[in-house]
């Protein structure tokens, strides 16, 4: 069983929901990332989403765009990201790590090379934002051969037909994009999300994570009631940006935000 499936199983037994923070690898500089990952786990993260910086993050709002820019000032590459995962795995072999990024850095590396190197580093899943299932045949094959879960996005515009197509290619979990927009938007509609998740559940038994627009403990709680995993990106990255000159302050802010969400979800 994959680390992701095992984690969802154990959470289910404990009647808890997964909390999945997102940080961009190398933001604000590469030396903090592994420490930050451990801190997030201590604060209550069930899994970690690690952003691979890209020069043209089309699906991201300004907060995560700037995180990518900060990381790229340090020339953080896919290979560097694998190095961070490997370092994290030295003391943590239990927390699933999911890479989130755009296709071009994967294309340049080659699908098979990417999947093999990711697996060797200790990566468990990958979300390639601009790679829809109908183009993803070869990439999915390479990932499956290396026990990496291909995780796909679903959105408010996904029809029944598309939901079927996506669930036929996906494993690990399904990532539901809660709104029409980019990351960090502020227009979350809980009722609409709940309605759409019911539609998705008709087609799959995979766990469903919800992301985009979850900015505080209250929203995390609301989403955890209707989904299996709550994904928090921009709200956390904003804290990193606000404290970018001071590593200790970043770790403290991350601990407070994620700890607060965990506490709200566990009550």
């Amino acid at each position, binding site marked *: 069983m994959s680390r992701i499936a095992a984690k969802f199983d154990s959470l289910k037994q404990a009647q808890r929901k997964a909390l999945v923070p997102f940080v961009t690898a190398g933001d604000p500089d590469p030396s903090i990332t592994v420490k930050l990952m451990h801190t997030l786990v201590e604060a209550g993260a069930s899994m970690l989403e690690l952003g691979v910086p890209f020069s043209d*993050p*089309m699906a991201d709002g300004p907060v995560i*765009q700037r995180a990518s820019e900060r990381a790229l000032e340090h020339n953080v590459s*896919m290979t560097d990201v694998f190095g961070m995962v490997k370092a994290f795995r030295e003391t943590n072999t239990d927390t699933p790590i999911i890479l989130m990024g755009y296709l*071009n850095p994967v294309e340049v590396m080659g699908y098979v090379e990417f999947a093999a190197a990711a697996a060797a580093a200790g990566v468990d899943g990958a979300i390639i934002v601009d790679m829809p299932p109908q183009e993803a045949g070869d990439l999915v094959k390479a990932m499956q051969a290396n026990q990496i879960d291909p995780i796909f996005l679903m959105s408010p515009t996904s029809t029944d037909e598309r939901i079927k197509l996506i669930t036929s290619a996906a494993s690990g979990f399904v990532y539901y994009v809660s709104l029409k*927009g980019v990351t960090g*938007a502020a227009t979350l509609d809980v009722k609409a999300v709940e309605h759409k998740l019911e539609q998705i559940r008709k087609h799959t038994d995979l766990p469903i994570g919800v992301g985009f627009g979850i900015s505080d403990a209250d929203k995390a709680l609301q989403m955890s009631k209707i989904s299996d995993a709550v994904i928090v990106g921009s709200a956390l990255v904003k804290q990193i940006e606000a404290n970018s000159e001071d590593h200790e302050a970043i770790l403290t802010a991350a601990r407070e935000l994620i700890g607060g969400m965990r506490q709200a979800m566990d009550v």
Partner: protein
Amino acid sequence: MQINDTQLTGLPDEKGHFGPYGGVFVAETLMQPLEDLAQAYQDCLNDETFLAELDADLANYVGRPSPVYYAERLSRELGGARIYLKREDLNHTGAHKINNTVGQALVAKRMGKTRIIAETGAGQHGVATATVAARLGLECVVYMGEVDVARQEANVYRMKLLGAEVKAVSSGSKTLKDALNEAMRDWVTNVDDTFYIIGTVAGPHPYPAMVRDFQTVIGREARKQMQEMTGGLPDTLIACVGGGSNAIGLFYPFINDKDVRIIGVEAAGDGLSTGHHAAPLCDGRPGVLHGNRTYLMESDDGQIVETHSISAGLDYPGVGPEHAWLKDTGRAEYVAIDDEEALDAFYRLTRTEGIIPALESSHAIAQAIKIAPDLPKDHSILINLSGRGDKDMHTVAQRDGIEI
């Protein structure tokens, strides 16, 4: 109009592929809207009313057909091939861009969209979009990189006059690619009521096919005009390639005429060897950006690198996927012309023919100036003069040390 009569190569396939290039590489939220657009566009092509409306707009609003002009004095000076210019610079708004925006605006209207967005580099596509939006009474937002806003002030003002909101984009390299990112972000947020008019033959399917179809009016007219003027087809076609819409518009109707040599001209900027250029076909490699697989300017890590060209309209790190396929199949050749060569061509055409070309089109002229002297006198070169140079007065004057 019969768009289908030129689709002899049958591309793209139903998923938008030109060989290994093209396709649909976008976040899930845009997948269904793109499928809806592809369907709506197909419906338009099968609708006589739509095609008649498009024909009427091209004739009465754009001012088509645009003439083909024999550049006699330039040809004589060069002493070789005869040079002909397809005068897209004479279209309403001053470039070929309007052929496409008129078409896409009609599609938008049929789909019941009330808001139009666009990206622009030199501002020509932005102006052409603001123009059709004004005419149809639609809200219009144009995204433009901060760097381009500064070097194309006149076009920014034109767009504002036309009632469009121009949003300066300050992320990344602050040029065309970043404007495209920002337009995509807008579209994903406002997808229900918004139609995104992409200005070139790039982006996710169906854009490369749709924009090509609307631009092939250039090549269809030119084919007929050359036959009438010279009794045959041109021997060589030359067009500049940024994203590649004016080039594919000229080339496409000649693709099955194997004797016609096809040359696309990219921007070599400071020179291909310097790395400061915008020539992905000449000096890039395949990758995925802005919804399609194509040749890109990228680092070894797959990051898109900043490009450079004196012409804002060519300053783009990608290129339409059909050009990538024409390159790989060898049907078209792609070369590059640097800033200085383009400027020389700009002055030369201005002074020999009394035609001030856009800096983009000047790249195509420069290539003709390069090869014409060595070609026989019965060889004909047809250049797509894709736009006029009024918008570039500021840039050129600045190079001359003059403030205007």
